[in-house]
């Protein structure tokens, strides 16, 4: 990456004595909806580190994936004087006014997984679009050979991330495997039963299909179930983006070749760290607002990565047990999909028949 850190803020692993001095802050984690394994895994990770970071965590979400439902929750959280709201938004625009209202009320907003670009302090992007796109297509090509018909199963036509992934895949195919042809994109509406019927419809409609790429966590089991029902397991390749646990049965019966995803538990941890950092950046130690931040701040000097604090561009994940350094983007990047003030969480993990049992999300 072109961007390099001018100053790395190393967040030292917090010792018990250090954390006790941190003021406890109220943080909420509002995923798209309740009951989805990936979000529950985030929650699991977040819970593991919350106490250490001095965070009083609330995990709540609407019953269905509705942006209005999230807005109602944000509105109530403003009234409840939360310090930081972290959310995976159901819509890039609908919650913007209320999140802006929250920011005006002095609440830091961190989005993860799904952004609200105009109303947040920071966004944690799951992974770079181009990385996951090329990883998928490489795996597909290995299965089908260079000339093949493939199809994509997405959630809805206006799902931002899915569309970005699709674009990334198309770009990569155009560059590297011109023989691959995306014949159709099916939309399963983020509902497993709908995904199932749509996938079966596609399999019937395209008898020469070689692979199918479900890129939404409901489309993955739906598509695999369709392949199983139609006795096409292994005849049509199935490579998707989604969590492995839901699809163990399909790895086992061969109707699913590979899944790509990031470590959701770790993502929950990083989300908490970013919440703390955002809070500290706004309210924290005076050093953080200084022109030149200290090179090695103590835990009591948690320095933020505030927007107006242009020099601070990366931080270490060590305090929550994540390896490496995370970089905050200063400007949008078409290839990775990062926008301003975005942290890209990780490169995708690949789950296959060989390793799927090791992951519990």
């Amino acid at each position, binding site marked *: 990456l072109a961007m390099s850190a001018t100053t790395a803020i190393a967040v030292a692993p917090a010792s018990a004595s250090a954390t006790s001095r941190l003021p406890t802050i109220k943080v909420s984690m509002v995923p798209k909806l309740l009951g989805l394994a990936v979000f529950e895994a985030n929650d699991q990770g977040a819970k593991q580190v919350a106490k250490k970071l001095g965070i009083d965590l609330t995990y709540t979400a609407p019953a269905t994936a*509705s942006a209005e439902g999230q807005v109602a929750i944000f509105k*109530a959280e403003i009234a409840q004087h939360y310090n930081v709201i972290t959310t995976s938004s159901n819509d890039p625009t609908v919650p913007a*006014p209320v999140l802006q209202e929250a920011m005006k009320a002095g609440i830091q907003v961190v989005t993860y997984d799904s952004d609200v670009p105009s109303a947040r302090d920071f966004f944690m992007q799951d992974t770079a679009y181009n990385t996951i796109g090329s990883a998928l297509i490489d795996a597909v090509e290995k299965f089908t050979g260079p000339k093949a018909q493939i199809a994509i199963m997405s959630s809805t036509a*206006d799902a931002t991330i899915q569309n970005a992934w699709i674009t990334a895949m198309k770009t990569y195919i155009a560059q590297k495997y011109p023989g691959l042809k995306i014949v159709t994109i099916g939309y399963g509406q983020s509902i497993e039963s709908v995904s199932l019927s749509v996938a079966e419809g596609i399999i019937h409609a395209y008898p020469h299909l070689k692979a199918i790429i479900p890129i939404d966590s409901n489309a993955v089991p739906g598509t695999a179930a369709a392949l199983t029902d139609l006795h096409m397991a292994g005849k049509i390749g199935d490579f998707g983006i989604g969590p492995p646990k839901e699809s163990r049965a399909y790895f086992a019966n061969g109707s699913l070749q590979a899944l790509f995803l990031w470590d959701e538990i770790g993502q929950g941890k990083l989300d908490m760290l970013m919440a703390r950092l955002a809070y500290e950046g706004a309210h924290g130690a005076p050093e953080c607002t200084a022109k030149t931040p200290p090179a090695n701040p103590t835990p009591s000097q948690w320095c933020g990565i505030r927007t107006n604090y242009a020099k601070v561009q990366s931080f270490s994940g060590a305090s929550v047990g994540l390896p490496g350094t995370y970089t905050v983007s200063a400007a949008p990047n078409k290839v990775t999909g990062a926008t301003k003030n975005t942290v890209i969480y990780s490169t995708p993990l690949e789950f296959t028949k060989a390793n799927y049992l090791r992951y519990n999300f």
Partner: protein
Amino acid sequence: MSLSATSPLGTGPAAKAPRAQTAGRQEARWVATVAVLLVALLAYFCIAVPDFRDLGVSGILGLSEQFLFTGLIALGEALVILTGEIDLSTGAMSSLSGIVMAALWQQGINIWLAVVLALIISALGGAINGLFVTRFGIASLLVTLGTQFIFGSVATAVGGNAPPYNFPKAFVRLAGTGSVGPIPNELISFAVIAVVVWLLVARTRYGRGLVLIGYNRAAARYAGVNVQRTLFSSFVICGVLAGAAGIFVSGYYNAARDDIGNSLLLPAITVVVLGGVDIFGGKGRMSGVILAVFLLGFLDQGLLIRGNSSLTATMVEGIVLVLCLMLKIALDRRAGVRLKESLQRRFGSARRAAVLPDT
């Protein structure tokens, strides 16, 4: 010679007749009940939920921005339900109207013009419902069940991949998040519209006809009410109000979405029923509906602020609906609505005479 003079019956002692059983009193009592419940609810939240109390007057009024669009839909829905019909397409209509407005604006049309055009589209949608109901004589439940799907799909199609957002400031302030002092603009708009609809139902000729149709459609026709036109226009008004709700929603969220209204239909019907409108038409008052908008809305918002999950809030609303209806049935029964009658009312066929074509 006056007739009553020739007829001893005509001047018989009034005391002999059954005690006055007034519809008005029954309805007024329910409105009062809803008002009491609303006050009690607010009092409870103010006492028991510090975060709610801390919002202050303006903050509490501000909460209403969250549910007034449901209220707008409920007003129109109440109009239709008063005639004994129902409109299930209002939620989809809101989505459609918001998205049409946004799409037009994106095409470079002035936002206010776009608003007007979206309202016209909503009126047309309402007119389609009305047409099927009056001209083809199809039960509105069926018609609007069908058009609900259709409006929804059209909204999705119009919205395309990237529904528009970030409308002009003036529009967002007026329709969405602005306020005059502590009073949100949306509340002001709602108040104005609510008063107009209330007057329309309670005080105008049109409203008189509307309610009579709900009580007995055939008799209304024989009494000279233009049943077809009144029914038709009730669907159009309902469509326009749903469309207006869609525009307010879009303004409030500063974004349009093809499914933004879907979640508004059931709460709107709940509000109407909670407000005391009989689902079979005729009985009910707009004032009850208007109060119920706030009752249900504050219940929902208050529970969220109390720290309950939105799921709990919805469930509590369902339970409150059942309890309120049980209370209402108990009150009405005391007032003498007997089993036979309630059976007749619920299942009898006479009241639901088909719409005869006007000649």
